[in-house]
């Protein structure tokens, strides 16, 4: 390779390569992006595995996430504490799952987590209402939102408990050919 980089050890880079869908070059680029979010907080030398976490507000300010209505939920789903404080590992994880090469099952798991606003492992009516309001920026009337939620749950719910479990969600996702291409952020 060209210049010898001192940000990560070779073993670290290998481990990152094995566990994510990125190459070495991309991981180094991601580190650059992570660093520029908070240059005074994020060390350039990661060989000692520093315990550095960036708060939610900094991560959602990234141009790739800034306009996304689900940005808070995305960052929260990929953080250890569930509040959106991401270490570099979580950061890489997030973009790895949202990258082009992640398989459908993996994306479905995290999409389910993202849309589950009350974090109860089901997509209930309230979760759907929140999703719709954010999608349409409150364009639809209250009545329309209610109707859409009811009909959507009716369509996708297979075991009849009036909320969507992961199995229902995954079943619906496998029938959507566009899911792989829309659930993708290019970094």
């Amino acid at each position, binding site marked *: 390779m060209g210049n010898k980089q001192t940000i990560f050890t070779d073993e670290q880079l290998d481990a990152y390569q094995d566990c994510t869908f990125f190459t070495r070059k991309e991981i180094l680029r991601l580190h650059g992006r992570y660093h520029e979010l908070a240059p005074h907080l994020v060390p350039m030398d990661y060989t000692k595995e520093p315990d550095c976490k960036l708060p939610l507000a900094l991560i959602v300010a990234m141009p790739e996430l800034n306009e996304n209505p689900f940005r808070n939920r995305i960052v929260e789903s*990929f953080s250890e504490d569930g509040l959106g404080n991401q270490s570099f590992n979580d950061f890489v994880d997030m973009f790895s799952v949202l990258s*082009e090469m992640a398989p459908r099952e993996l994306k479905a798991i995290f999409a389910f987590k993202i849309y589950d606003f009350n974090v109860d492992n089901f997509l209930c009516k309230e979760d759907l209402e929140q999703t719709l309001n954010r999608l349409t920026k409150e364009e639809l009337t209250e009545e329309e939102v209610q109707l859409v939620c009811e009909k959507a749950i009716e369509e996708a719910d297979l075991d009849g408990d009036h909320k969507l479990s992961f199995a229902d969600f995954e079943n619906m996702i496998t029938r959507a050919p566009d899911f792989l291409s829309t659930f993708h952020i290019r970094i």
Partner: protein
Amino acid sequence: MPSRTIGRNRGAILSQYYNRTLQLRMRRQSRPSLRDLPHSSRPSLRGYRVESDFSETDSRAESVRRQALVSNLQKLSVSDRVRMLRTMPLSMADKRQSSVSLVLPEDPLPSSGQIRVTSAQVLCHRRRPGSYCTACVLVTAHSLQLWQVALKRVGGRFGTGVLSYFLFLKTLLFFNLFLFLVTGLFLVLPQAVHPPPAVHPPPAVHPPPAVHPPQAVHAPQTPQLPQGPASFSGLELLTGGGYFSDSVMYYGYYSDTTLNRDCDNNGSLPSPGGWRGLDCARQGLSYSMPLAYFFTIGTAFFITCIILVFSMSRSFGQSFRVEQSTSLLAMKAFCSWDFKVVKTSSVALMSENIGTQLRELLADVTRNHANQTAGQRLWRLLVHGLAWTVCSGSTVACALAVHYLAQHMHAVRVLQARGEGGAGGVAADPLLSEARLLALPVGVSLINLLLPGLFNAAGWMEEYDSPSVRNSVAIARNLMLKVSLLSVLCFHWLGREATSGLQCWESFVGQELYRFLLMDFLFTLLDTLLGEFLWRLFSEKVLKKSRRPVFDIARNVLELIYGQTLAWLGVLFTPLLPGVQIIKLLLLFYIKMSSVMLNCQAPRKPYRASKMTTVFITLLCFPSFLGASVCVTYTMWSIAPSRACGPFRGLSTMMQAGRLWVEQLRDANPHLTWLATAHSYLVENPLFLFVAAGVFLIIIYFNSQVVGGQRKVIALLQEQIKNEGEDKKFLIRQLQNTHAKKRDAPARRSQQDSAC
């Protein structure tokens, strides 16, 4: 409950993946057939271990599970291990903990600087360089980080639909790059290094067939043939004639002999007639041009076919769904937000679009489909019929116009050449005659530009059930126009020009194709300028509307496919045509990118990107590539090559080159007689082709039956899930009743006690 905690609990995930790695180890090579799976859908009965609800605090049990998982991972092959690690939905820290304890073998990593392996990972093992297949390398090359930033900007502003056009352009670029490399290496380079003698012997030995009166010189391009290449005037770039006509660009330049070095009889002069110069060939480096030409073109087409079919099946697999989707609203809610879009205005537009689409879907779902009256249906049918008549009528009219124009141009050319030959002196203004060659390409490109507008107009007055039907009809009409134009042109070139007695008809056809390609490019530029730039200025300044033109994805992709068909048709006659196409695609990319960014807005209608990509790849494979390869095969099989130029002069068909080579081999080495006999039985005999086609059809039938069977199984399994849901509801109710009775029973007893 077990199935509910999947994806949630770390312990559950570890157990789940332990089971998966175990299954993967046990059933490495074969997929479990449907027959082997028990009929019940309950996990425990199916043979999967039940993942019970583990509590987080049981860390010792978790570390035991992690150890078990790590030991399983270690026993898998490297690629499987990497794939398992990547698809585990654990956090990075957990994964690294699991992988750190793995002692990964010291495989030499190929430098993966530029090349990023995408879904080829599934097929090609990344750490085993030896098992790369050609198709995999090309699929890998497709994901080279070319234009990464530009594509990201377009995707961020316009979404997946417009991005798919640019990705399709990138795919075509790689196809052409491959063709260019192959033809360049095997055809152009050897011929350029060994140029043929500059003087063409006058055609006294082989007089052209007596269709036209014999002439001393029959050269429609350069006025006097033995003069050597004409001087370079700017018109060459447009017409492909003049200076270029006697260059390595065209078929006519290629020699029909074996190119030799260190040859006994005067090294610079290649021995006449490649088949007779064998003893010379044995002494030095020899390179038989006719064979090289024949086999290069054949292999290039064959490999392109394989790559196309491969990418088509991959794209089809990603987007094809075995049964119709019924959960439209839910899908719209969860899958319609395009995460790539980052520009504020585009995001606002997307929200608005999704809101509108949801309203429409809701209206669709809730309204009862009132049957239209017979009168309304009849009226709709009439309107459809009228629109289709207009479209097909105009298509037929244009095809006939092109046919007569081509005929007229041909007659004019023949007359001109006859006039030249008779007068023997100065011809008509050479620039004018060159420019006249452009009449046909300009006419065809004009038709391609204007007629889709007419189709759009016809489509406005019609009423369709859904926007996707409207889209498909528009594409079908466009396709019909292009197919008819191309077939008329092919008929004209291969039927008329090839048998017209022209001295070097292949070069002429090659030049025609070059002109067509170039005119297509120029008219696309014109269309971009007029259709997008000027229209935006017009609507902003004059109409004072802020609505910008919409980028018509389908039409632009069909234009790309049309250009690519021309390039494929022309490879046989113009080996450098892929190079021209590459330059054209590069320029087109940057021009379209800037035009889209400056002038257009995101499409309002929903665009099913993955389905459309599949459709476009299929169109590239079926009418486009198939048509081109049929034409090329027909040319090679039945049309007599011209006698005075090109690598196949003197042969009755181009295929004869292969035949002669096999015979030559047999003569040279009697042990290879079996090859000649095999060749004559397999390749010459049409029965072989019929048998092969029959086998293909049987395979297709078999696969379609399998798909039908799977559809039935899916329906049955869904029934089962529904029934189990009902069972669950029933049992829960029973449970609640029993609990209620138990609660009531002591209460009643205490009441009775107190009553007494």
